[in-house]
């Protein structure tokens, strides 16, 4: 109990919790972590005086799960903590994106849209780019945009700048991919999971049907640092 509590507190204090859940979960995680530690410490420091009587009850109708009524399964609680410390699970990346590829879901209209300006390079979210393409793509025509995401490949060797979104936790992650078409002679093929910033223009007519990913014709591909929040 204290172990899990401590792990939760640690996750909330570092930014590691962002790999697993959304941003607003920070305080609930921290609070419940502290609470668990306090409860467990209380159990060790000051065992409730009524415990002997309580135990006596338990043995009368013991249903087979042993000491003090604590089921064996409870020990599984240490597992998430162990996994966190030993493997230190990374944020999700290309492995998941590639497995989930082939499905491009219709994107809901993003809450805040980037201000597009003629003749300038504008940073656009990958999901917003896909939404604009599904919207017909007119708003992207002739617009220089920059997309940031990690690199993933498909079976045919085409590569994508990808982002994952999470609604609640990493279990419901969904992949959004934009195919990168780099027509230049020295076209780079960055390694999997490398974070890149792709500057270029929308290839008209791609990704409008809501089932295939749109394509960006790249003018420049730069390797960048992984952002603090990797999910969109």
């Amino acid at each position: 109990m204290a172990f899990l509590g401590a792990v939760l507190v640690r996750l909330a204090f570092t930014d590691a919790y962002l790999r697993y859940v959304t941003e607003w979960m920070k305080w609930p995680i921290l609070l419940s972590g502290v609470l668990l530690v306090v409860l467990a410490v209380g159990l060790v420091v000051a065992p409730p005086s009524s415990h002997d009587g309580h135990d006596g009850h338990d043995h009368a109708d013991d249903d087979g799960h042993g000491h003090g009524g604590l089921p064996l399964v409870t020990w599984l609680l240490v597992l998430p903590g162990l996994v966190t410390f030993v493997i230190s699970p990374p944020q999700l990346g290309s492995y998941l994106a590639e497995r989930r590829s082939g499905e491009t879901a219709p994107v809901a209209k993003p809450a805040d849209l980037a201000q597009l300006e003629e003749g300038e390079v504008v940073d656009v979210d990958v999901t917003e780019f896909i939404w604009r393409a599904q919207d017909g793509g007119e708003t992207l025509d002739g617009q220089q945009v920059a997309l940031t995401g990690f690199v993933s490949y498909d079976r045919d060797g085409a590569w994508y700048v990808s982002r994952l979104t999470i609604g609640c936790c990493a279990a419901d992650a969904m992949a959004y991919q934009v195919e990168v078409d780099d027509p230049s002679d020295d076209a780079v093929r960055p390694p999997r999971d490398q974070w890149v910033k792709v500057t270029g223009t929308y290839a008209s007519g791609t990704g409008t049907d809501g089932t295939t990913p749109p394509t960006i014709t790249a003018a420049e591909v730069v390797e960048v640092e992984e952002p603090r929040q990797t999910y969109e």
Partner: protein
Amino acid sequence: MSTPPVGTPPVSSGTPTRRPPVGQVELVAIAILAVLLGGRWIVPLLDHPSLATWSTIFVAIVVQSTPFLVMGVLLSAVITALLSEKVLRKVVPRNPALGVPVAGVAGIGLPGCECAAVPIAGSLIRRGVAPAVALTFLLAAPAINPAVIVSTAVAFPGEPMFVLARFVASLLTAVAVGWWVLARAGRLPMLDRGGTLDPDASKRDRFVQTVRHDFLHASGFLVLGAILAASINTFVPREVVDTVAGQAVLGVLTLALFAFLVALCSESDAFVAASFTAFSPTAKLAFLVVGPAMDVKLASMEAGRFGTAFARQFVPVVLVTAVVSASLVGWWLL
């Protein structure tokens, strides 16, 4: 980590079902130490993207659910230790047949994930609320609370009928199962592992005891469910699910089964449902109705709380009811 209560006599009591108090704690402590020390050698063996993905999803489910479970445990402790009989009797109608729909609608009031609902339902039963009423609440709360309704509306823009259909089908499932439990009252092999409460203990002691007890009992099963759900999520490719998208009946059944296995939280499953573009609306509805009512995580927690024999009957009944109700409502509204 918990330690055995101080002052318990050693194994001498001679009850055959009782495990010796030594052992569990020490064994686990040694195991943890071994893994932490040996981590350096173990990690390279585990360095595979699928395993990394599995562990991320596994930890994510646990991290995500724990605050909700703690919230549920706290609420359940409030119900157990602080709510007086009088208040409880006022809130819950005396006639259980009537109490079932009331409990269903009351589910709107608990905006949380499904893990919070299990300890709350348990503590309601402990306080003498009819099991049928408490279980209806357990099924309804995660499915029809405002947070879920809003996220469904966002995930299905311009389809208000879909949101309505989800609400109706989930409520229908909860009430139908509630009445089923009522009809079988007394014949359901329900154990209450809620533990016994010391009647002499002060309110504060009772509160702390309940929180500790409920959390320790529920959390292990939550972890077990998370292990299963993360495995399905990582190792079963989506294409397997997509192959049956064309068939009407098979599509509904597949998405219902998928919802049971992946154990998503009810606030975000609508976005995942929206991504099954190839499936019929009714199949998506089945996904959204089954998920919050029953999934591996919940089944595991309910088996822990109310006994395996109970879960063996309760889980299939909920699944069938949810699928039938989703199909009917989908056929009617969508």
